[in-house]
């Protein structure tokens, strides 16, 4: 299902006022008006309160004050306020207005970088055979079979004259790299950020040449479009040979190095390592020795850590480019767009590390927009398995996300995500450059739970407690307020029992438990099969410690000699197994869910917090909201047609009149 139709509606705002007005008139049934600027008749039937009411409606539902043409239209006897309301309840301004309520609450924009190690391609310069600089892309930590470069840049210091590492200036004086070395250890590739048809054997559709009608909002920075001389257009990129690998599956590599051997036993002599490298090559990890030659997926972290044949895939699609040897600009996109993507306030060069977080935020907004635009059952904000994504997000969910896993999970036998929150097979086919095409994905998978399992929510609220508290506040209208209780010393790790803490934590810990299966600062899902809430294999040793495999994921504070509890699960192991989808089901069944949604929206439209005096109104609105199947459009219609809305903010009718 394409979401493009709705995205186009944003262009409504870019039309001239006359055109918008004409459209509005057409939809209202062609009311004839006197647009003559000189005709300033006052409608005999309209009072100041009527005009004021219309202005409030326009600000709330059209997203701006009425134009003078609209005021003239309003003055016509045939003008139908209810019809105007109904029409604007399907408009983009209504959608934006509603989304704003929940964005103000959840603040789903990133102040973070996403740097899944396998996804980052850094770019450095080496001197080519003719002495001219050449860009070469590489990954940090890439395994290579050559000891001189294993885990480092693919050309050794002896070959380039420099020690090249990401996020640091090269050390040493550059020498010319011979053509033989260059051809042996690097290759040229036509990457996804330059070629629309990068998946073809011989791509021809180059950005700026041959690529017809690229998305206007897809804009790589100039530094990615030009060679090192700053002038010559880049038509292909040079990349380390291993990074150019396109295999889907690699094999665990062992070098045979199990112990560091310095080049000289004399501690006063600076050790020499192969190829002039300044640090010794990585040793074989116990896991690699135990699983030598076993297959590992190339799109995950295992591929980077263990398999030299695992690279960035076809057209480097599993990686995102930096235009330098660190966090450097990659694409243009806005810093600020409070009026939506059709109306950015700027367009600036942004780091590749922010590229995907930026799109996570857009996904969250599009998802909420979709619910309001399509007037879906509002419970879907928590329970919905659908989402709305574009090209960069398809690339993220298919390729990049998988690089986030697996680290500590490997010790439990999980080499790649078994039960991702968004099943890659459900990701639609879009190209990474399709930034303006948004598609509704009807089903992300069994573990999806509305906004709760989007990367943006999970990264914004990085810990299980933060996630639980956000849920409690935004969707149940409740807060955690500490009691005035003196905190007494206690060694009880159970905060649901500890005096002074229990007031909040008796509620918070069970809520947090719903998120115990989604790793903190991440969105890797920990399946119950590999990670039972209580794990009998994770026992305390005689020193009271958990072993290194268990420690990152299991909580030593809730462990004994029979097993340990998954971190954040102790508040309710049942909730941990229910996961975010269970939280969504449980929360939306609570009566407070509907009343909270009604209170939030009513308060927003009345422009003030609701009070006990609003009880009858809220009860009536809540009842109708539930009867309507949790449809927001019905709720808002009931609010804006209520006398309370019309009377809201009228305390100072004298001051309204008093403004001179």
């Amino acid at each position, binding site marked *: 299902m394409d979401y493009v139709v709705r995205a186009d509606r944003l262009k409504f*705002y*870019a*039309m*001239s*006022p*006359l055109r918008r007005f004409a459209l509005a008139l057409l939809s209202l049934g062609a009311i004839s008006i006197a*647009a*003559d*600027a*000189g005709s*300033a*008749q006052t409608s005999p039937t309209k*009072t*100041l309160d009527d*005009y*004021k009411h*219309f*202005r409030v409606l*326009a*600000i709330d539902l059209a*997203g*701006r*004050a*009425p*134009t*003078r043409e609209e*005021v*003239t239209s309003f003055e016509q006897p045939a003008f139908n306020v209810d019809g105007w309301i109904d029409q604007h309840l399907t408009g983009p*301004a209504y959608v*934006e207005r509603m989304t*704003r309520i929940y964005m*103000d609450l959840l*603040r*789903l*924009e*990133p*102040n973070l970088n996403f740097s899944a190690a396998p996804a980052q391609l850094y770019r450095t310069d080496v001197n080519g055979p003719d002495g001219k600089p050449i860009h070469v892309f590489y990954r940090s930590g890439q395994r290579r079979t050559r000891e001189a470069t294993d885990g480092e840049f693919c050309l050794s210091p002896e070959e380039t004259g420099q020690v090249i590492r990401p996020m640091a200036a090269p050390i040493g004086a550059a020498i010319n790299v011979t053509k033989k070395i260059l051809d042996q250890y690097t290759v040229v590739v036509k990457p996804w950020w330059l070629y629309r048809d990068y998946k073809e054997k011989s791509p021809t559709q180059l950005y700026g040449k041959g690529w017809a009608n690229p998305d206007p909002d897809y804009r790589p920075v100039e530094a990615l479009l030009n060679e090192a001389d700053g002038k010559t257009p880049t038509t292909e990129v040079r990349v380390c040979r291993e990074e150019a690998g396109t295999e889907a599956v690699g094999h665990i590599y062992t070098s045979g190095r199990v112990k560091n051997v310095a080049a000289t036993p004399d501690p006063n002599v600076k050790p020499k390592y192969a190829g002039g490298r300044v640090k010794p090559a990585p040793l074989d990890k116990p896991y690699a020795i135990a699983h030598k030659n076993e297959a590992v997926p190339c799109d995950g972290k295992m591929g980077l850590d263990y398999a030299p044949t695992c690279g960035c895939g076809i057209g480097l699609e599993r990686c995102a480019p930096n235009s330098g040897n660190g966090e450097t600009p990659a694409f243009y996109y806005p*810093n*600020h767009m*409070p*009026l939506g993507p059709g*109306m*950015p*306030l*700027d*367009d600036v060069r942004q780091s590749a590390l922010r590229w995907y977080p930026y799109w996570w935020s857009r996904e969250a907004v599009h998802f909420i927009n979709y619910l309001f635009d399509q007037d879906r059952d509002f419970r879907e904000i928590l329970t919905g398995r659908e989402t709305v994504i574009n090209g960069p997000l398809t690339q993220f969910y298919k390729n990049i996300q998988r690089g986030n896993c697996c680290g500590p999970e490997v010790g439990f036998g999980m080499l790649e995500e078994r039960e991702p929150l968004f099943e890659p097979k459900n990701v639609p086919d879009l190209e990474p450059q399709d930034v303006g095409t948004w598609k509704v994905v009807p089903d992300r998978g069994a573990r999806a739970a509305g906004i709760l399992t989007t990367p943006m929510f999970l990264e914004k609220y990085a810990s299980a407690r933060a996630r639980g508290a956000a849920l409690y506040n935004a969707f149940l209208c409740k807060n955690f307020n500490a009691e005035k209780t003196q905190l007494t010393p206690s060694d009880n790790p159970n905060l649901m029992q500890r005096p002074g803490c229990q007031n909040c934590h008796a509620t918070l810990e069970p809520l947090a438990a719903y998120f115990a299966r989604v790793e903190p600062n991440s969105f890797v899902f920990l399946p119950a099969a590999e990670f039972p809430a209580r794990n009998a294999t994770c026992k305390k040793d005689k020193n009271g410690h958990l072993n290194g495999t268990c420690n990152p994921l299991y909580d030593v504070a809730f462990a004994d000699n029979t097993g340990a509890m998954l971190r954040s699960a102790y508040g309710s192991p049942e909730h941990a197994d229910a996961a975010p989808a269970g939280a969504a089901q449980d929360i939306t069944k609570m009566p407070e869910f509907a009343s909270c949604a009604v209170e939030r929206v009513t308060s927003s439209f*009345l*422009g*003030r917090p609701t*009070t006990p*005096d609003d009880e009858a109104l809220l009860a009536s609105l809540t009842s109708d909201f539930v009867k309507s199947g949790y449809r927001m459009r019905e709720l808002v219609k009931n609010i804006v047609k209520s*006398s*309370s809305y019309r*009377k*809201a*903010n009228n305390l100072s009718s004298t001051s*309204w*009149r*008093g*403004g001179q």
Partner: protein
Amino acid sequence: MSTAANTKYLLICSVFSIAACAAHSPEIVPASSPEALRVTATTAADTAPKEDLRMVPPEAYMRTYLTLFGGLVPVEAQKRARGGDGAALFDTWDDYVSALGFPDYRLDVPRQTQTNALMVAAFERLGVALCDRTLEHDLKSKKPVPMNQRLVFAFDIPRAPASLDQKAFTPKFDLMHRTFLGYPAQLAPPDREARFFKLYSETVADHAKDDPKSRFSPEEEGWATVCYAFVRHPEFHLY
């Protein structure tokens, strides 16, 4: 009266007062029957909770601003407002975005719901840019702009020294009143038009007599000033 006489007078008064109190037994108020109070009149009471006027959300303010500017997208409006004349009327939206009260979700900065000095200063600056640039568009274009394509000043002003006549002022003022405040000037407080006319007249007169180096004629400056007054009017910013 001497001190001795004064004392004697107070003493006599005290004696009479005590005697009067002693003469009365304590008053007994009988219990009344628990009947409801008699209804003497009925009047409707508006029990709806009341709040003061609220600030127009920054999103709505900016959309209104852009609409007044001819329905431009922000980047284009910024370009238009900055102009090429070095007048420094406008900086960039990025400079104003937080001052206007927009939330910053990235930094968890909530939206502002009340004005502050910086916000009012931003309104002022944006308003002046809007008024000056739309006046240039509507009234000073080399090729006259058709009335139905004018943004704010949808009327003509005399080229010759203005006749400072309130009767001629009224329809133009009403048009701007509708443009910015959304209702006819007739429904405004009765002295509003007179106050605006005074502002207009004084501006025109001052501008003419001082011979300032200005892009605007005295009449244009007069209407620009009326426009400034509207874009800073509380009714424009509240609802």
